């Protein structure tokens, strides 16, 4: 099992977790642990098994095999004990649109059996934490998407949980709201000493927020480590993106043959991502190659290795390939039509 660095005790332990739906295996023998106070990210494309994993840890679906321990309680044997110490933000916005912000929080405080004396104080505190105090009496349906997401986060905190699960907390938000949610989560971790486990398919989100990241693909955990460790695990320190004026069949072979180049990925016609140990050296070589062949370079850029490259390295494809899937259903050709 993958252990976190440092001496903090484990808040979450997932041990050989398996989830099957009939013959389909949604989660395949996944093991990892999350230390107290850590922000841990499950990164992967849609359908990778991230939400299934989070649902197993939050007692929403039973495990088919393996074990999950949350705050020292086995989710299969002591689900109620687990529910008392966790806060969960589901993927969908599930706060009641007909109720006010305050009413939504009050109802969840009661569901978590927060004593009457503490209820008002807790609600005021979480509203302050998510910056919704002045919206307390507003009907939830009048809030923007970003504010509703903040309300969901407040709802998950109203009973002062120790561990916070967030299933794709920024999906559907505009870039400004997304950054606001990141800042809020980071602030909550520091002020409330929360352990957080979040799922995301945004590389930038995982990179900015998470102490450690587990890359999940097709129900399997394919890589685990800090963002820096993961980036270092990919051969090649830099990524050079090059766009030639026209496509020729030799480009791929010529690029792969360059000194220091560890992998070449064709993105579109004439556009390549080249992983190299030395960005500056490869850039010079590319300019010389284009000049010697009489070809024109449309663009050329050098950047450090990103989590996108890590994902490509471990899964053999890009995360965004999964997000824009080709249509499954194809119309049959019109009778008599030429191929």
């Amino acid at each position: 099992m993958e252990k976190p660095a440092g001496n903090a005790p484990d808040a979450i332990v997932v041990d050989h977790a398996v989830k099957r739906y009939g013959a389909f295996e949604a989660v395949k023998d996944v093991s990892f642990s999350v230390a107290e106070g850590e922000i841990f990210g499950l990164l992967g494309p849609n359908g990778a098994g991230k939400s299934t994993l989070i649902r197993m840890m939050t007692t929403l679906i039973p495990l088919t095999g393996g074990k999950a321990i949350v705050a020292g309680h086995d989710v299969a044997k002591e689900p109620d004990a687990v529910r008392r110490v966790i806060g969960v933000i589901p993927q969908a916005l599930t706060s009641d649109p007909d109720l006010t912000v305050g009413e939504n929080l009050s109802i969840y405080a009661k569901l978590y059996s927060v004593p009457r004396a503490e209820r008002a104080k807790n609600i005021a505190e979480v509203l302050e934490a998510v910056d919704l105090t002045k919206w307390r009496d507003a009907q939830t349906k009048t809030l923007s998407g970003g504010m509703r997401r903040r309300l969901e986060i407040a709802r998950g905190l109203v009973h002062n949980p120790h561990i916070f699960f967030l299933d794709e907390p920024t999906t559907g938000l505009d870039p400004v709201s997304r950054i606001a949610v990141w800042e809020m989560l980071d602030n909550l971790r520091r002020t409330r000493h929360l352990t957080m486990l979040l799922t995301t398919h945004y590389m930038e989100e995982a990179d900015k927020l998470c102490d450690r990241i587990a890359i999940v693909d097709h129900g399997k955990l394919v890589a685990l480590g800090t963002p820096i460790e993961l980036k270092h695990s990919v051969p090649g320190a830099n990524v050079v993106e090059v766009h030639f004026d026209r496509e020729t069949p030799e480009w791929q072979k010529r690029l792969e043959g360059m000194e220091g180049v560890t992998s070449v990925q064709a993105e579109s016609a004439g556009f390549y991502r080249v992983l190299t140990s030395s960005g500056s050296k490869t850039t010079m070589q590319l300019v010389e190659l284009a000049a010697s062949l009489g070809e024109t370079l449309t663009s050329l850029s050098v950047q450090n290795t990103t989590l996108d490259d890590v994902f490509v390295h471990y899964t053999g494809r890009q995360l965004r390939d999964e997000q824009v899937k080709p249509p499954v259903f194809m119309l049959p050709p019109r009778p008599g039509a030429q191929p």
Partner: protein
Amino acid sequence: MNRMSAIIEREMRKFFRSPTLMIMSLMMPLLQLVIMGNAFGGKIVGARVAVVDYDHGPEAVKLRESFDAIAANIKTFKTIEYKDELQAREDVRTGRIDAAIIIPAQYSRRVYSQDKPQLGLVVDNSDQFMSGSLEAEMQSLVTALTTPVIQPRLANSIALEIVELYPYVNYMKFLLPLTVSLAMYISVMIGGGMLYIDDKARGVHEGYLVTPITKFELVFGMNIAGSMKAVLAGICLTVIGSLTAGLGVIFHPMALAELFCLIVAASIAFNGMMFLMMVRVDDPLVPRAMFGVLNTLLLYPSGGMYPIAAFPRWLQAISVVDPFTYCVHGFKAVFLKDGGFAAIQYDLLFLFVFGIGTLLIATPLFKRTL
């Protein structure tokens, strides 16, 4: 208990924030009461009846004077003079007139000689209500004409003395028990069925399931809230419906208590039944597809519109397990008969047992996980 009350609080707040939903669940049955109450159960007025007189004798004149008396007073029909029986039959067939009465030649002579005098009545029996009403009217007319002016001192025929226990019940009053039952059912159908599945589909239940609430608290919280909505609908319809139909039963405290017990029992029964049907449903389209048919399936065998004794055996079997039957029977006993608790005790017992029983079956079927 606190967690259960949170579920009830949420449901009730949501209910009171949706005035359209409240109004619709009350208005529709009330509209049904007003429209159906006025559409059915009325008396025929102004039917067109052809008179073909081949006799023209004193008895035929007497008969036609009786027709004129009806046209001038209760106005069930008015007569139109026809010369030809065939033309009259054809016009009844084509719907230009509603019936034709034929006074045959020698009718007066046969009356005086007591030689089997006969009158002919041609009716369009594709319309049972119209033909039945005209037949009954003509029959009473003929009976009146046959009755001797001077009654015999000693009656030699058996007479049936009809004693009506209750004042005249018009169709709107007759329909009120069914309307109140329907209002509660619609409230349960929307509040306990559709909203429950919609909440499930929107992920609201997922939010509940990650809290420490128990299965029992969740199921009973949702069902108590659903029953409370149905009770509110039942009370509103009882008050408004009674006043609309002209029943003063709501001004009698004892009857009011009986009605309240019935409303509570019926709400629990309807809610339990609905929850049992919806407990494993996830698709929001399923309740929408089901409810139209379910409405018919439960409403018609209840005896609220047509007597159960007239049903075939298999339909009577449905009536026995249909909570509507007991609900309608109980409301009839209170609204129309002032029967007291003795008249509704078995209805109350069935409805309570049915409601609690369905809930007890549904609770283990309810999944505490997704």
